[in-house]
């Protein structure tokens, strides 16, 4: 069953801070939420690589990696910006990048929003994620 993200307190997405998902305010201290309308400006305006986590409320593996991403964000925030995009609410960006499976993590280099620099599909442990993201967090 589809569940509306808005029905849940934002704390489910990592962190206790109030954050309005649809407006692109920070999901937590270290993670920002993107939308169809804020995606392009965020990527093109970034001064470091941005990892975008495509997720949905009804996706169990997405929840499994949420705390891992939160940790990676807090430990590597200086090198890599982590962002989340809810595919339910923001279908256009997901379609544009042919996201057909979630969680999908796309890493964009600053200014290069036309094509992702890295695509990771499926839930992975922290060690494996860090290994696959090595060039962006080194």
């Amino acid at each position, binding site marked *: 069953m589809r569940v509306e993200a808005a029905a849940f307190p934002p704390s*489910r997405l990592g962190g206790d801070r109030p954050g309005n998902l649809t407006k692109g305010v920070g999901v937590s201290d270290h993670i920002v939420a993107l939308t169809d309308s804020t995606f392009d400006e965020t990527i093109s305006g970034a001064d470091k690589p941005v990892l975008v986590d495509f997720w949905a409320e009804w*996706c169990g593996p997405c929840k499994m990696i949420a*705390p891992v991403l939160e*940790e990676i964000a807090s430990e590597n925030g200086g090198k890599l910006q982590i962002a989340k995009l809810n595919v339910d609410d923001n279908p256009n960006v997901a379609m544009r990048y042919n996201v057909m*499976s979630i969680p999908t993590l796309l890493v964009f280099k600053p200014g290069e929003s036309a094509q992702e620099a890295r*695509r990771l*599909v499926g839930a992975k442990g*922290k060690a494996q994620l860090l290994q696959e993201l090595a060039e962006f967090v080194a």
Partner: protein
Amino acid sequence: MTKFREQAARFGADFVTADADRVDLASAPFGVWVDGTEYRGEALIISTGATARMLGLESEQRLLGHGVSTCATCDGFFFRGKRLAVVGGGDSAVEEATFLTKFATQVTLVHRRDELRASKIMAERAYANPKIDFRWNAVVDDVVGNGRVEAVRLRDTLTDEHSDLAVEGVFVAIGHDPNSALFRQQLDCDDAGYIVTGADSTSTSVEGVFAAGDVQDHVYRQAITAAGSGCMAAIEAEHWLAAQEPTARQ
């Protein structure tokens, strides 16, 4: 999930988000290694879960996330109005196929035998679903496509003949393997690799080591049963620790 985690933290749990790569279960305190860092504990609860089995094809890895999926509930949404194949013949394959008909125009269940292994009620529901058809005695030899799935190449197990089935997505549901490799030399596991636990208990073949969830359960494999057995393991570990205390103080 976040709330469970927050509650555990409130009660004093420390989290190390990393993959354990070695264990020593010879005697308490048991050892767990993460990247060379050693952790020791008087009791150990194993809840490493199970991993979806894959077909083992190069093309499957290449097209993972581009039409190949192992999670219908996660990815069904992306296949609205498309034709799909589901590989497998057990309860989870039939459940996934049935679920996917909410989005797909047609779902073909590809199974290597000539009848389903799924429970009767699930199978009958699938047979009655006009959007589900079946390819019996067929295995997937290749996933065809460049950048996205265009077809699956099937081999008939009786005639060895190949044929392509045009689909835009493939869902692999051929079972799960317990994540028990780390423990297999040191704990009793069954033939399929599941950690063997005592009757009505999460105790393993080593006293003080407990196993909960999918890594020890090939029957139910549900979130609620995993959580329930996790609670059992916590209580059993607590009893075990309490029983150890007098000797530890001597």
